[in-house]
C-alpha cells in the first residue's frame, strides 16, 4: 500500500508482486484514471488531498479485510495525491490469487471500499477556470452495500 505523488507503472507493479511465483493463477489489475469530463462538465485538472496517517491506516485495514475474505496470494493498492490532469492515473489495485473469481471479487471489493472509506478528496478545476470539490457518488455507497460491511466501519 502506497500513497504517492508520482505515477505508477502497472506492468512493473504486477511483476514486483508476482514475479518468480508459481502459485498464482490469476492477477487482476484495476487502474482508475482521470477523465476530461465529469457529468458533462469539462475538466482541466484536479488536486487530490488525503489525511496522512489515517489514509494509510484505512488502506491497510481494507487490504487486510480483503485477505480475510478471499484466498489472496498478494495484493497492492497505490493511490496518487497532488495535482493531476486528464488521462493521468489516479489509483491502482492489484489482486493475485490461485483462481480468477477470488482475484476479481477482491479487486472490486477493494475499489468499492476505498471509494467510500479511504480519506481522499478531489478538487476539480473546470476548463472555465472554476474550481469545485467533487461530491461523493451515491452509486459508490450503493456499490459498497453488497459486501455487507458493518455500519460502524463506514465513513
Amino acid at each position, binding site marked *: 500500500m502506497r500513497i504517492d505523488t508520482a505515477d505508477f507503472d502497472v506492468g512493473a507493479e504486477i511483476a514486483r508482486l508476482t514475479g518468480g511465483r508459481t502459485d498464482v493463477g490469476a492477477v487482476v489489475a484495476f487502474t*482508475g484514471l482521470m477523465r476530461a469530463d465529469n457529468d458533462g462538465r469539462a475538466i482541466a485538472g484536479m488536486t*487530490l*488531498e*488525503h*489525511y496522512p*496517517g*489515517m489514509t494509510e*491506516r484505512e488502506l491497510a485495514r481494507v487490504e487486510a479485510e480483503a485477505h480475510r475474505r478471499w484466498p489472496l496470494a498478494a495484493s497492492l493498492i497505490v*493511490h496518487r495525491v497532488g495535482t493531476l490532469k486528464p488521462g493521468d492515473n*489516479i*489509483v491502482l489495485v492489484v489482486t493475485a490469487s490461485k483462481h480468477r473469481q477470488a482475484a476479481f471479487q477482491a479487486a472490486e471489493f477493494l*475499489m468499492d471500499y*476505498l*471509494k*467510500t*472509506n*479511504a*480519506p*481522499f*478528496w*478531489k*478538487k476539480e478545476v473546470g476548463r472555465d477556470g472554476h474550481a469545485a*470539490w*467533487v*461530491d*461523493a*457518488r451515491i452509486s459508490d455507497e450503493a456499490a459498497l452495500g453488497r459486501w455487507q460491511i458493518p455500519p*460502524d*466501519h*463506514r*465513513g
Partner: protein
Amino acid sequence: MRVKLMYFAWVREKIGRAEEELELPAGIATVAELIDWLKQQGPQYAEAFRRAEVVRAAINQTHVQPSASIAGAAEIAFFPPVTGG
C-alpha cells in the same frame, strides 16, 4: 481537555486552517456536542458545519458516528464524504 482538531477539503477551506489545538470546556462528551460548540466559535465554523449531517468525523484516525464519545481523543478530524479512486 486539550485536543488536536484537523480539517480537510472544503471543511478546511471554510474554517480557514488545516489544524489547531484547542482546550475544550467541560461537558462536551460526543462528536455532535463538539460540533455544536464549534459552531459558536465564529462564522467560519458556523458555515463549515451548517449542514453538519454531511460532515464526517474521525477520532484518532478511525471513522466515528456523531454519537461517538470523544473521551480520550488525541486527534479529531472533520471532512466531507470521501471521493477517492
